[in-house]
């Protein structure tokens, strides 16, 4: 559904810049992937502390393996797989407690992300697609970024009046602006 070729080549460039010791590239890489990596254990039902542990382990592993990544353009897949296995390790380590204390639904959720079943794959695919969309939103001009983020990426969507106030235009302008911004976003992901 989403063409990720421009993002994968950006990833490859980031990895190469990191290999050359550029802190700025590492910061960009961490910023780019932090939500996705944190979301994987959280979506599996791990607590914030456990998700933080997984997150830290993933980035420690990455910094150690930076020079060994054979396909820097596949950084996203590498990060997702690493986060998945580290999440799995936590789930397996505490499974009896989780099953006893947190109910069937919770166990299913954890199992779904931590195994190789189609449900787990679908969940990860959705997380990756959401990550790509957020990356594309970050590439929009400032006005479009605000409009799309406020309307679609907040837990509670902002009203047109709020968006209009934020970007300093009349409320009636928001609908056509929103449509144009979505078109730009769709083009970035084509």
């Amino acid at each position, binding site marked *: *559904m*989403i063409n990720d070729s421009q993002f994968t080549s950006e990833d490859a*460039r980031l990895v*190469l*810049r*990191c*290999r*050359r*010791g*550029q*802190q700025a590239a*590492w*910061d960009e890489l*961490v*910023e780019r992937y*932090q*939500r*996705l*990596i*944190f*979301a994987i254990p*959280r979506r599996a039902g791990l607590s*914030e502390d456990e998700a*933080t542990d997984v*997150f*830290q382990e993933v*980035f*420690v592993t990455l*910094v150690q393996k*930076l020079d060994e990544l054979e396909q820097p353009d596949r950084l996203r897949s590498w990060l997702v797989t690493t986060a998945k296995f580290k999440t799995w390790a936590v789930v397996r380590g505490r499974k009896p407690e989780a099953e006893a204390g947190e109910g069937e639904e919770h166990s299913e959720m954890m199992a779904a992300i931590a195994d190789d079943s189609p449900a787990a794959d679908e969940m990860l695919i*959705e*997380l990756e*697609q*959401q990550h790509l*969309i*957020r990356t594309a939103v970050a590439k929009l001009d400032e006005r479009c970024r605000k409009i*799309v983020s406020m309307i*679609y*990426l907040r*837990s509670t969507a902002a009203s047109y009046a709020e968006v209009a106030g934020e970007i300093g235009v009349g409320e009636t302008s928001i609908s056509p602006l929103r449509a144009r911004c*979505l*078109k730009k*976003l*769709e083009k970035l*992901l*084509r």
Partner: protein
Amino acid sequence: MNSQERLEKIISLMERDDSIDAPQDTLRWAKNLFAVRAAEPSTLRRWIAVLVSELAPGRPALGERSAAAGKARQLLYQAGDAAVEVEITPKGKSFELNGQFLGEFQEGSIAVLSSEDGSRECGLSEVGGFAFDKVAKGNYDLVVRTEAGEFAVEGLAVG
């Protein structure tokens, strides 16, 4: 999937996106991880470039008519099998430093210009070009970093 269908799918994915940022202190911790790596001793080879020719401003380059000679100071450095061409041109109160790395390099190679006041970097273009604007008068180290190693022009005087 046509454009409209793709757009609807994108909107639906955004609306279902309940991910949140990692805690700020964890994020800072992850960024700081890199400092440990940077502190490890580098295994890169380093070549110190030596000046092989310098053309002062106003003097024509070989094969150039004198009228065409500009305000730029042109320098050529050699390091191992590679060379670095540097051109320093006054621009108002500061200088523009343009150059080209003449040697093997890969995508992601960079040029770093540093002085006591800090450092700036830029990626090499497809032909090995690099450019720094608003360079203040002073002494600089210019380093080109490639997969093979570092090519360093030390003590480059600007101005």
